[in-house]
């Protein structure tokens, strides 16, 4: 955000204000170290990234992801309008189901990755915090005027993630159906602490878990209820990043961008079957050609020898030949060694290929590794 400026009434450039989220004071009271992220003050860590990471894998963590954009789309001809901007098949997305998709530009580049839920009359989208304003602008431009677009900025979003998440949430969530009715990528309406909430069984850690959309005024009460359970600790953005990296889940703005296509990124599952035969989504020519012939480069996992990590931007070599660039990298707390992701020329992207990564003038040895690095434990 440091390179974006707004112009005030006198025409002087001023830095945009960093915004606060509903749980700002709650995080500070629990010792969260606050940083600026996506234009908001957010907790990067509490007791430490490794401890929080391992706690989530062994117990359960509560993540505040209220910076993300919660959008409700409605109106006549909604499905057809949305299928013109996403490669999703909405005819197979039933009430109560959630699906991952990508917002594409005319070249098939990725403008954002997102979740779509089928509501009785509407579609509910969760988009990335850093891109939500651009997404809204893009959607407003691309969607017909009769499609309504409502940003739920009076709602917070919490993620409860980890092997004990179900046991914890079952103590607090009541509704027409038991929480066990939700399997991975299903959602429903429940009540927690007297507030109506939307709970989906999904997340960004590779663990079983839930994402809970709730009214902003309920955020502190519900966060207190959940963190009052002995299995739950609040977890910062730092561990959220190391958890998703181990799970092989791409991070928008790093692993995904307008410069990358969903086929290069290995997101073929997001190009739904009917859309592959019918096309009709942005960049379809390029994407269908990449599906048929294979992309020129692929997003892959890399396991590094030694303990030194490779970071975003590091160049990858096969001998003297530059073959790609690292898009995410860091130390894996669960595996106790460095891991990375990179876009690599397809000729060098097969699992087991030995490569080198240049880090501060040195070459680190790395091997192409299937993702996830740490197995998913979704409740399917």
């Amino acid at each position, binding site marked *: 955000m440091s390179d974006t400026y707004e112009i005030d009434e006198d025409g002087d450039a001023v830095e945009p204000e960093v915004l606060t989220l509903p749980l700002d004071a709650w995080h500070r009271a629990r010792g969260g170290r606050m940083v600026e992220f996506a234009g908001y003050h957010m907790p990067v860590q509490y007791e*430490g*990234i490794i*401890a929080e990471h391992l706690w989530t894998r062994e117990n359960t963590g509560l993540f505040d992801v209220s910076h993300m954009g919660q959008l409700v789309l409605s109106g006549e001809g909604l499905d057809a309008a949305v299928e013109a901007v996403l490669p999703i098949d909405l005819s197979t997305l039933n009430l109560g189901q959630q699906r991952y998709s990508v917002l594409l530009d005319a070249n098939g580049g990725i403008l954002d990755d997102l979740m779509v839920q089928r509501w009785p009359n509407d579609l509910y989208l969760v988009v990335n915090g850093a891109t939500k304003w651009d997404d809204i602008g893009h959607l407003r431009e691309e969607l017909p005027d009769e499609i309504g677009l409502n940003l739920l900025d009076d709602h917070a979003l919490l993620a409860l993630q980890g092997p004990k998440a179900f046991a914890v949430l079952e103590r607090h969530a009541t509704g027409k159906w038991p929480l066990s009715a939700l399997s991975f990528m299903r959602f429903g309406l429940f009540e927690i602490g007297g507030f109506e909430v939307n709970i989906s069984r999904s997340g960004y850690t590779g663990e079983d878990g839930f994402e809970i959309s709730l009214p902003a005024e309920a955020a502190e009460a519900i966060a207190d209820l959940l963190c009052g359970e002995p299995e739950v600790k609040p977890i910062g953005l730092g561990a959220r990043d190391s958890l998703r990296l181990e799970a092989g889940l791409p991070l928008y703005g790093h692993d995904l961008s307008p410069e990358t296509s969903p086929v290069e990124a290995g997101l073929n599952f997001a190009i739904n079957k009917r859309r592959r035969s019918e096309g009709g989504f942005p960049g379809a020519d390029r994407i269908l050609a990449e599906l048929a012939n294979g992309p020129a480069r692929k997003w892959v996992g890399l396991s590094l020898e030694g*303990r030194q*990590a490779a970071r975003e931007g590091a160049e990858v070599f096969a001998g003297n030949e530059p073959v790609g660039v690292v898009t995410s990298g*860091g130390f894996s*707390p669960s595996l106790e060694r460095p891991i990375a992701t990179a876009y690599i020329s397809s000729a060098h992207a097969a699992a087991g290929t030995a490569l080198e990564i240049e880090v*501060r003038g040195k070459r680190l040895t790395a091997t192409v590794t299937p993702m996830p690095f740490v197995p998913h434990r979704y409740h399917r």
Partner: protein
Amino acid sequence: MPRYFSEDHEWIDVDGDTGTVGITDYAQGQLGDITFVELPEAGSAVKKGDAPCVVDSVKAASDVYAPVSGTVTDSNAALGDEPELVNTDPEESGWLFRLTLSDPAELSGLMDRAAYDAYVAGL
């Protein structure tokens, strides 16, 4: 043995013309969990302000600057297996490297403990 501190949060213990360098407790707290330390090789010449050493945390790699000029004589081999010593004992067993000072007058630009504590309190 006098200990001096830099504004970049390095400490240096000086014994004759030998200095032992590490990062402060404040610095390790800011960096978070340290997972790897790239140490300088013995014999390498460093100038005040050079970055002969890199500390890797889960999130990022951070330079450690030489608080004074000199020639590296030794580095802390224990950090190869236990980089977390920089977190748990940054100002003693988590030291980083030793050097022979080439210009001891540079020490006059550093802070003593009281001045450093006041500097950190003002951050």
